[in-house]
């Protein structure tokens, strides 16, 4: 006979713990299951003393467990104490392996790894996104001396330690442990293929120097307890046969299993295969499996406070209590200015009725979207955004109209109630292509990029609708502004979106041309084979088209088009295109003019193949996805470091630029400094959504940064650092007069390295180049360079720049 509960809660993170606490408060029969030996494993594994933020500040906390910004230790202690006080029924070390819905009664059967079976009426799933650590999968994997993580390598001295795994975590652990221990690495394969370049080199060197022993092509067979000097015995299968190694400790770093497969096995459906997709939930956090609720990061809510509120609310919903969601007052405040606003639920119904794009979006997801959005009511004639602005928000029209201002057309096209705009910059990551002016009685919902991207990735219908509109508008605005929708219908109907990885070829020189590509996001290089090598002739950013040359002349491709970075294009069918061109002679003339200009530029580049090498070099440095990049001419740079000093001086003492680091080609140096990518990698996973793009294109980090370091890890160019609080700039005159103290541009007094906190106890926050958006004079690094070695340019200027370096 198995145990039965009203609510079973899986995972004791902020969401699960809060749900359990509320259930305990309400004296409901409940059970909290945690796979680790302690509560809230994700937060438990934070670095010691890490300061945990309580973003978003405006959202009130509603939970039976306290939570406010503080150190990891304070927070865990408060949670443990409250859990004890409320009498939460918790079982640690219980990894749930399956959750099955009983066909008859509607309850659930939960199985755990140690064989226990539990039944429950409802299940709250709050397992987060970290996943479970993969175990060895051989007998003895749970002995005390076998561990699956390593917090402090300095803890172990003089031991014999086997490290199993070949990823970055295993390598970093092995190298750190090798300082004071004998380390044996067990690698299932013949090489360290999965590791980062730096780790790989360090590992191979450590093996070569004899600091680490490595068994290649070997796998553990079993782990045994041993009598004698060493407590353990690792039995390995090596290419030469079985080997036994006495060990003090075994550390297996085999990665984690993503929770998605488990969640899907429970019957929960995900709307798409995209890794960021979140399961579709009801307004009461119920998944498509009745009685199975999902809270926290797994449901798409990565912040602690959100998860805790949901944990509380979900218990209320389960017992049938009416509870106004914690975000209701915030939404109320947002809608207060809209004419005819009564209450939040009616407003959400009105939005779903008015805007077809949101008609099929779940209420919960729409609430979240609205919570992240702004309601704007601009006066008639006021611009919503301007052409060449670098904003990337998405607008939906709740009421009224907007006009699109196209300079070369007399009549301004209008968009009305229920339509949307702003998708061009959202998708391409480039400047706004036109100015949009508000019409009469205009009510707009402005949604930030990340919020709308979450929706696009988890709702196929929304994605399809936006893609359709994008193709229609892109073809119209870029190829044929005068054309009517009807004229373009055939071309648009045959259009497809195609995706290319960096380096993929769209078409090759000499092939037959059967289509035209409009670059939707990313960028391309155009190259030709000259003297046996590929010479780059030009760079094509998003918003332009390629491949029309072969179509117009009905001949072979004259050059090769290659994706410079991950790129999406709209592929337009050649036959439909030619039909359109035959029907509209004007279009042909216009295309022929562009064709001539482009040919002239290409011929100019062909005469100097070395210029193309400079473009190739810049593309290889990732400049293809840049919107603004700092370049240093090393033949002018006198290494005075005034660029770095100027940066530090204007940014709280922390330079966001490393002049010396980075690659150089033909005296052109790409220093380690932010390029303000079209689709910034740093924005990808920012829990408080603190990274934004300013209208002039600057990607910057806001004050609500929680110091988690995700952006630092996600940036492929290493331009983000974690820095303590700002230092006041020293006085130039005082320094000149006395020679004492900090000179302008000097770094502030050195703080202890590696500490998560700065000297005064404030948490470190992420810092990066903001292109001096708050400096009236412009980029300080460029303006402080005495020899003109530092300039900032946009990728569109690469060909001209390359020509200027002859």
């Amino acid at each position, binding site marked *: 006979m198995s145990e039965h509960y009203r609510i079973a809660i899986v995972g004791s993170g902020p969401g699960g713990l809060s749900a359990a606490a509320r259930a305990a408060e309400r004296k409901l029969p409940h059970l909290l299951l945690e796979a680790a030996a302690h509560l809230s494993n994700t937060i438990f594994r934070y670095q010691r003393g890490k300061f945990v933020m309580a973003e978003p500040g405006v959202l009130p906390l509603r939970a039976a467990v306290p939570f406010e910004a503080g150190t990891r230790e304070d927070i865990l202690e408060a949670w443990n104490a409250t859990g004890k006080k409320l009498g939460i029924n918790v079982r640690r070390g219980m990894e749930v392996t399956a959750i099955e819905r009983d066909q008859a009664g509607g309850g659930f059967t939960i199985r755990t790894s140690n064989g226990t079976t539990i039944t429950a009426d409802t299940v709250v799933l709050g397992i987060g996104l970290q996943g479970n650590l993969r175990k060895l999968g051989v007998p003895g994997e749970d002995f005390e001396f076998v561990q699956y993580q390593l917090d402090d390598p300095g803890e172990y001295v003089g031991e014999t330690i086997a490290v199993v795994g070949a990823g970055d975590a295993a390598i970093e652990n092995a190298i750190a442990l090798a300082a004071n221990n004998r380390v044996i690495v067990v690698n299932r394969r013949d090489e360290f293929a999965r590791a980062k370049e730096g780790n790989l080199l360090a590992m191979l060197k450590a093996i070569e120097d004899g600091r680490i022993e490595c068994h290649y092509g070997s796998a553990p067979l079993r782990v045994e307890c041993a009598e004698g000097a060493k407590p353990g015995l690792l039995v390995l299968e090596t290419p030469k046969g079985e080997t036994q190694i006495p060990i003090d400790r075994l550390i297996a770093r085999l990665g984690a299993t993503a929770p998605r497969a488990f969640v899907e096995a429970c019957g929960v459906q995900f709307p798409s295969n995209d890794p960021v997709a979140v399961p579709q939930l009801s307004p009461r956090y119920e998944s498509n499996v009745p009685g199975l609720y999902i809270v926290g990061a797994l449901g798409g809510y990565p912040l602690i406070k959100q998860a805790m509120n949901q944990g509380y609310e979900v218990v209320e919903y389960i017992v049938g209590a009416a509870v106004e969601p914690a975000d209701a007052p915030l939404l109320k405040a947002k809608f207060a200015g809209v004419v005819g606003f009564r209450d939040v639920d009616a407003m959400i119904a009105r939005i779903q009725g008015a805007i077809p794009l949101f008609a099929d979006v779940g209420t919960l997801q729409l609430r979240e979207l609205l919570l992240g959005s702004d309601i704007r009511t601009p006066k008639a004639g006021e611009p919503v955004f301007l052409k060449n602005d670098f904003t990337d928000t998405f607008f939906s029209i709740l009421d009224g109209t907007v006009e699109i201002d196209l300079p070369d057309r007399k009549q301004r096209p209008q968009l009305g109630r229920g339509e949307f705009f702003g998708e061009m910059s959202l998708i391409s990551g480039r400047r706004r292509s036109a100015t949009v002016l508000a019409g009469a009685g205009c009510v707009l919902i402005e949604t930030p990029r990340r919020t709308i991207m979450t929706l696009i990735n988890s709702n196929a219908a929304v994605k399809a609708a936006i893609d359709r509109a994008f193709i229609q508008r892109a073809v119209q605005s870029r190829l044929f502004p005068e054309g009517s929708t009807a004229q373009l219908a055939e071309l648009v109907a045959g259009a497809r979106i195609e995706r290319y990885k960096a380096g993929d070829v769209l078409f090759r020189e000499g092939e037959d041309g059967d289509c035209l590509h409009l670059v939707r996001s990313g960028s391309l290089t155009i190259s030709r084979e000259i003297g046996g090598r590929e010479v780059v002739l030009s760079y094509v950013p998003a918003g332009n088209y390629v491949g029309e040359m072969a179509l117009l002349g009905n001949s072979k491709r004259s050059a090769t088009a290659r994706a410079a970075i991950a790129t999406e294009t709209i592929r337009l069918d050649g036959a439909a295109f030619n039909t359109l061109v035959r029907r509209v002679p004007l279009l042909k003339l216009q295309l022929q003019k562009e064709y001539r200009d482009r040919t002239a530029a290409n011929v100019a580049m062909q005469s100097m193949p070395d210029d193309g090498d400079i473009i190739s070099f810049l593309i290889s440095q990732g400049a293809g996805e840049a919107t603004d990049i700092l370049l240093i001419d090393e033949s*002018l740079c006198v*290494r005075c470091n005034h660029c770095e000093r100027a940066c530090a001086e*204007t940014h709280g003492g922390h330079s966001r630029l490393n002049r010396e680091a980075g690659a150089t080609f033909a005296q052109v140096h790409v220093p380690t400094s932010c390029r303000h990518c079209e689709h910034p990698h740093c924005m990808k996973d920012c829990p408080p959504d603190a990274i934004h793009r300013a209208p002039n294109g600057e990607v910057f980090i806001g004050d609500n940064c929680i110091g988690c370091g995700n952006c630092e890890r996600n940036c492929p160019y290493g331009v983000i650092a974690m820095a303590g609080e700002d230092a006041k700039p020293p006085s130039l005159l005082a320094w*000149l007069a006395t020679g004492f103290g900090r000179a302008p541009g000097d770094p502030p007094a050195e703080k202890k390295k590696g500490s998560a906190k700065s000297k005064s106890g404030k948490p470190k926050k992420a810092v990066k180049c903001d292109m001096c958006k708050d400096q009236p*004079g412009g*980029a300080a690094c460029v303006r402080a360079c005495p020899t003109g070695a530092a300039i900032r340019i946009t990728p569109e200027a690469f060909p001209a720049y390359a020509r200027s370096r002859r």
Partner: protein
Amino acid sequence: MPARAASVRAALAKRGASRHESLLRVAGARYLWVALGLSALALIAYLADRSTPVANGGTWLGYTLGTTAALLIVWLMLLGIRKRSYASRLGTVQGWASAHVYLGTALIPIALLHAGFRVGWNVHTLLLVLMFLVIGSGFFGVFAYLRYPAFMTRNRDGASRDAMLQRIADIDQRALTTADRIDPKLHAIVLRSIARTRLGGKGLLSELRARDGSVAAITQIREAIVERQTVLAMPAQPVQAPAAGQTMFAMVDYLAHSQDDTSIGNLRSLIDLLAQKHELARRIVRDVQLQALLELWLYVHVPLSFALLAALIAHIVAVFFYW
């Protein structure tokens, strides 16, 4: 909203040049023309002036030229403040530097015309001499700025100085391990050579003191080998020692012939390592020298400028109180 449109336009405008220009050619060498104009103007006025039979600083023209020169000197010295005022919106530092070079040069004709080409053993001529020294050191600075940066890049060959130092540290470690496998004596030699090597560090002093002990180590290793061979060999068979000037490759050849030593392989790789280190160290020393050349002249130029300013004050005081 028009304000925002203006700010977008301003942002697009302030992004500046999208090509690299040397400080002599910035903005179409604008300050070259300013300096030439100023000098020509001074020369014409000088030639046209017939107020005194012998030109001197006491005439109206003399005062005008003198005041111009004094103001120029003060302004030229303000570059030191401007280039440290990182938030300043007063032009770019490159523009200032370009003007500094050209207008500094224009000081030569203006000051000479002011002095009426007369010199003597007095504080006034001291001022003139100091001025020439400052301008001369400045010319060297311009020369250094235009010439050495490209050398530096070529010498570094894509590696940063820190990366080169890191590689040297790696080589040292491997050399020690290898030497240890051969002979404790070699280990001591390698250790000593490492201790004697001094590369990197911050500041001019450590830059000038850079040195590399690997050549000495190679010499000592050679001596040690010779010694051992002499001891091992029969007294009747004289050993042909490697000549002092022999290259390292010749030494390896020589070692390959001495068949009785089992650690030849190790020795060969040790010498290989030391040769690699020597090459790296040579590049670092060159890097340090170039860096020093780019900085060293300022240690003359700036203090002399202050001496010049002091002499200028003395000159003005002397002229107005004791003439």
